[in-house]
């Protein structure tokens, strides 16, 4: 049996808000799912071969030394024919995923918009605030090459960008996030329940939730808790709130707000503040502001947890840093490189989380193993394509301990 065979697109769970795909639309996603796995796996290995066999020797001959920064490797690899071809393939695969997703969504947008409006009017789980400005780090480019980013509208009040994100994430991740694209949130839940089996958080904040695919599993796992999922992008929140309501989740609210200004919530209001694959979408000045706000609204004894790709460190080979940087320059992730170059522990400490309260844990997507085979291992050198992440977190010290 093939070791790395993703399930067909039709294996995904069809919650009521999920756009319907025709036979051929699903077949195109099937192609992309396999194509993405092939690009990061079998032929992705060509990048290391090109580097070791010709790019590095040429660099040494020219400079009389090894590269000292990932950007030096990038400059050299961007002149290499193989890396250019591979990058062109990867970029095209991203664009094809967007194009197919948008065809699926836009042809049925009237139905999707009407359904979302109905769910959101009845559930009361959506709270929009037109006064919230879209930060420049969200609008400078369309992140992930998703046309319109996470915030733009095709017409007032539509759900296009949220629906497109949901319908195509399966193909982008090679099917690694499970039937509801919620493998990341499930992983967080699994980690928390293993770490503190008896913990009962009452109020949970998810910052940068987009469509709530990682916040909903938390709400489901802690049905007595109240989950607030915030994002600056109304277009994503509209879809996310409708999606959650359609799935029968009632203990979550989608609120349009910026993580940089949580002033509507009092100090210590939340027992748990979560971000999932979000910090790298910010900017150098926004990230510490958000972390400081998160610290303020977190109750003593509470948990802050960030799911991210591993930070670059001196221990990580420069070539691996360069490969992990690919999305920054080729898939519209402009803060990715700078963010992953930072010492996140120092940034967290600066935001008020003492170093001895911090931890780093490894987590991987939790999916239904009967349908979804595990994501490829990091050992296969897919440089960030596997659904395996680091959890950077802290248990906020109790005030008594802080005073002592």
């Amino acid at each position, binding site marked *: 049996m093939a070791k790395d065979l993703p399930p067909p697109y039709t294996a995904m769970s069809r919650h009521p808000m999920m756009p319907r795909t025709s*036979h*051929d639309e699903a*077949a*195109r996603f*099937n*192609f*992309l799912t396999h*194509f993405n796995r092939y690009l990061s796996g079998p032929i992705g290995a060509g990048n290391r071969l090109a580097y070791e066999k010709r790019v590095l020797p040429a660099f040494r001959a020219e400079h009389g030394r090894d590269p000292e920064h990932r950007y030096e490797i990038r400059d050299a690899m961007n002149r290499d024919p193989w890396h*250019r*071809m591979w*990058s*062109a*393939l990867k*970029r*095209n*695969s991203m*664009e*094809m995923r*967007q*194009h*197919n997703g*948008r*065809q699926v969504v*836009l*042809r*049925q*947008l*009237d139905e999707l918009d009407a359904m979302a409006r109905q769910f959101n009017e009845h559930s009361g789980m959506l709270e929009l605030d037109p006064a919230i400005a879209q930060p*420049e*780090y969200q*609008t*400078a*480019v*369309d992140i*992930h*090459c*998703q*046309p*319109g*980013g996470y915030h733009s509208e*095709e*017409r007032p009040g539509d759900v296009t960008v949220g629906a497109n994100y949901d319908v195509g994430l399966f193909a982008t991740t090679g099917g690694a996030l499970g039937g509801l694209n919620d493998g990341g949130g499930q992983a967080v839940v699994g980690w928390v329940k293993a770490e503190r089996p008896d913990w009962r958080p009452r109020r949970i904040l998810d910052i940068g939730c987009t469509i709530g695919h990682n916040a909903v599993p938390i709400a489901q796992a802690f049905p007595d808790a109240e989950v607030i999922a915030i994002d600056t992008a109304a277009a994503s929140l509209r879809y996310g709130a409708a999606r959650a309501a359609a799935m029968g989740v009632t203990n979550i609210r989608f609120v349009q707000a910026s993580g940089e200004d949580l002033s509507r919530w009092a100090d210590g209001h939340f027992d748990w503040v979560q971000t999932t694959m979000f910090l790298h979408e910010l*900017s*150098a*000045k926004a990230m510490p502001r958000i972390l400081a706000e998160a610290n303020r609204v977190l109750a003593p004894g509470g948990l802050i947890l960030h799911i991210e790709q591993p930070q670059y460190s001196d221990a990580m080979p420069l070539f691996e840093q360069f490969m992990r940087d690919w999305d*920054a*320059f*080729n898939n*519209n992730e*402009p*803060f990715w*490189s*700078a963010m992953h170059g930072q010492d996140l522990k120092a940034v967290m400490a600066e935001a008020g989380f003492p170093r001895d309260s911090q931890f780093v844990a490894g987590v991987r997507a939790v999916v239904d193993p009967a349908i979804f085979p595990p994501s490829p291992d990091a050992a296969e050198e897919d440089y960030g394509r596997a659904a395996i992440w680091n959890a950077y977190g802290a248990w906020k010290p109790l005030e008594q301990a802080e005073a002592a």
Partner: protein
Amino acid sequence: MSEELDWVILSGRRAKGKRPEFFDEPALDRLYSTVFALAAEVSALRERQDTIERLLDAKGTLSRSDIESYVPDRAAGDERGLATQAYIARIMRGFQQEVEAMQAHDPPIMDIVEKLSRE
């Protein structure tokens, strides 16, 4: 079906942000876009073919002459025409978005990378 929006044209909208030039010859970048969109279509066609074969295995009610003599009615003709338009939009995305890009004048991504890492 969306009444107000032309989903075929809108679905091909370009993502904001300057696209990297992977090759010295721009035509190669365009050619890649088309070739791999075609590759996806061939894959989808194969899947469709497989569907038909499986249905025939199960039901056994299609003949070659049925297919040869089939004439689409007006509604089916419209559906097929739209499908062909959408198909052309898919394989011509690279060219169409280059026109959009010429109109947009995005700065190099590095400018924004540096700006966001500063502020």
